[in-house]
């Protein structure tokens, strides 16, 4: 019975957890509930992934109404991989959350915080698992509304402005998305993604379908912070509570990227998106602009969290570059970078959260000499930083290797060259922090710092260790990403 209902449980458990948290109204108890739910999530996801690897696509009819009439939850390798990623990050971050949340959020809001966090998790998992275009919109709104509230809980008053800015931009994105779905629905009469894909085959060149594709692309790109649409991201990441920043950086944009993959490859199809329309050129240009532009902006930031936020925009550029390449290696690189970037940015933001916990600031000047006071945390920061650069033996290298292969596969050797150059820019911003942290005299702020509590240190170290482990053993990450890429490129099933 549990095995049959795994797809529903994956989304319902966080929802129930959120309800229980909101009813308990006691911070510690709510944390306990959130922890239990977060630890159960990866079990569900692993169960689903194993089932998919064994028996192929799972289809779950909600309420017993068969698709395409009812809402269908549809799990294949691609979203099983994503579900596992999101729920693993959720599970790692929860033990970390306790100290961090106690330090940064007013006690009377703790229970609400965990309730909203679980709603956010529920929304993200829901987007990943559902096979219904409108259901995606519903979950997108659940996760976005929860995210706005989470960001606004930051201690800095500027968090309110950042949350408001994200609310405006995010709502525009969601509106664009739903307009796109509306066009698709008016042309096909269906909201089930697989069904839409089947019915689109005859009318692919109609103007309404092209308009749908355009609206969906812009709407989803706002959510995933593709380069010129990224303006909400740096403020949101910089002023949100540390735990929220780590969670969002590792999951939210990844889920949006998955949605783009799903629409491009499974609904519209490679032929329409990449062969008839100049999507390759547009995505390629924007990805390169992100990789270079955002990396260069990152160099000049005063605040370490903001710097990493701009670095995230740049890293999303690598992922969309993989989509633009649209060949086996390139797409594998893009998908595996979803996973890898989640690990490294999660680790980096968690390390910074630990710093904030001890010294109450993450301005780069205040970090001076912190390496002597918090060697383990800052050591983890450096390792994860090396991964952002893409040093061999870390996950960053694996992604860039596949992206480079993809570039060569298309005969674009200059692109491989550009990937290497953009990595060199990230050497500058990561190097800047390393220099400040390890080679400068201890700053006033850092004087009384010491290692964070174990609850915060261990999850950070776990993610950092994962960035190294998956840099050597790529069978799980790149293997599954490769199979997902194969499935996407094979087209419309």
């Amino acid at each position, binding site marked *: *019975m549990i095995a*049959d*209902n795994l797809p*529903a449980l994956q989304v*319902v458990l966080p*929802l*129930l957890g*959120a*309800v*229980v948290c*909101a*009813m308990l109204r006691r911070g510690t108890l709510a944390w306990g509930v959130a922890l239990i739910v977060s630890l159960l999530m990866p079990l569900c996801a692993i169960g689903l992934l194993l089932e998919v690897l064994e028996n192929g696509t799972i289809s*779950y*009819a*909600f*309420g*017993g109404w068969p698709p395409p009439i009812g809402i269908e939850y549809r799990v294949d390798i691609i979203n099983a991989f994503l579900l596992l990623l999101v729920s693993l990050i959720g599970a790692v971050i929860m033990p970390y959350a306790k100290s961090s949340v106690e330090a940064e959020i007013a006690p009377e809001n703790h229970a609400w915080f965990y*309730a909203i966090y679980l709603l956010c998790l529920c929304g993200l998992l829901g987007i990943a698992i559902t096979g219904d275009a409108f259901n995606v919109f519903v979950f997108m709104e659940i996760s976005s509304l929860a995210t706005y509230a989470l960001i606004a809980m930051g201690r800095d008053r500027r968090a309110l402005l950042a949350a408001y800015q994200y609310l405006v931009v995010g709502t525009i994105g969601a509106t664009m998305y739903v307009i796109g779905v509306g066009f698709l629905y008016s042309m096909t009469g269906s909201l089930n993604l697989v069904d839409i894909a089947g019915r689109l085959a005859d009318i692919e060149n109609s103007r309404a379908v092209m308009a749908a594709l355009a609206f969906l692309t812009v709407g989803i790109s706002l959510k995933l912070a593709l380069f010129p649409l990224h303006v909400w991201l740096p403020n949101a990441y910089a002023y949100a509570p540390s735990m929220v920043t780590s969670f969002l950086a590792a999951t939210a944009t990844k889920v949006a990227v998955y949605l783009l993959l799903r629409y491009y490859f499974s609904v519209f199809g490679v032929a329409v998106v990449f062969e008839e329309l100049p999507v390759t050129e547009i995505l390629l240009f924007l990805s390169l602009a992100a990789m270079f532009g955002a990396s260069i902006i990152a160099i000049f930031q005063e605040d370490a969290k903001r710097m990493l936020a701009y670095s995230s925009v740049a890293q999303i550029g690598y992922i969309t570059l993989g989509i633009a390449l649209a060949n086996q290696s390139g797409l594998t690189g893009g998908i595996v970078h979803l996973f890898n970037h989640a690990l490294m940015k999660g680790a980096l933001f968690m390390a910074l959260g630990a710093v904030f916990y001890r010294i109450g600031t993450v301005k780069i000047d205040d970090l001076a000499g912190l390496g002597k006071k918090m060697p383990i945390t800052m050591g983890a920061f450096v390792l994860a930083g090396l991964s952002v650069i893409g040093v061999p033996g870390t996950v960053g290298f694996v992604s860039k290797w596949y992206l480079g292969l993809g570039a060569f596969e298309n005969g674009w050797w200059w692109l491989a060259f550009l990937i290497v150059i953009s990595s060199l820019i990230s050497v500058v911003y990561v190097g800047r922090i390393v220099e400040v942290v390890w080679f400068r005299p201890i700053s006033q702020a850092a004087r009384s710092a010491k290692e964070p509590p174990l609850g915060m240190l261990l999850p950070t170290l776990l993610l950092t260790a994962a960035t190294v482990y998956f840099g050597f053993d790529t069978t799980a990450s790149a293997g599954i990403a490769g199979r997902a890429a194969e499935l996407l490129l094979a087209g419309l099933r």
Partner: protein
Amino acid sequence: MRLDIVFRVAAKMFIPFILVFALYVQFHGDFGPGGGFQAGVMAGAMVIFYAIIFGLEAAQRIVPPRVVELMVPAGVAIYAGVGVASMLLGENFLNYSPFAHDPAHGQEYGILLVEAGVFVTVSGTMTVIFYTFVGRGR
């Protein structure tokens, strides 16, 4: 507005009918337009109307903020609980068929429970939003 007798008498006359109409919309949702959301908004509007005429304290004596804040998650709990119940009875999430001896009745009971959950959450949310805004700066 406290002293204005016309408003107070009119409000006292209206409020029972608002509630009755809300419940009508709630339970008639199976057959005609309506359902938990609309009924919940009406029930919330009733509390808000009362608070506007008789003051926030009077409204909060009848509908305490603690209760309202509990109603918001409680409605979701009813909704999701129905779904979990159908899973426990061996069907897919939110499949109401096993709730009665035959599927048609099961569907009816199921949607009734789910709509009750929607009613609780929506009326609670309407009221709590109003309480929060009015309570600011006090």
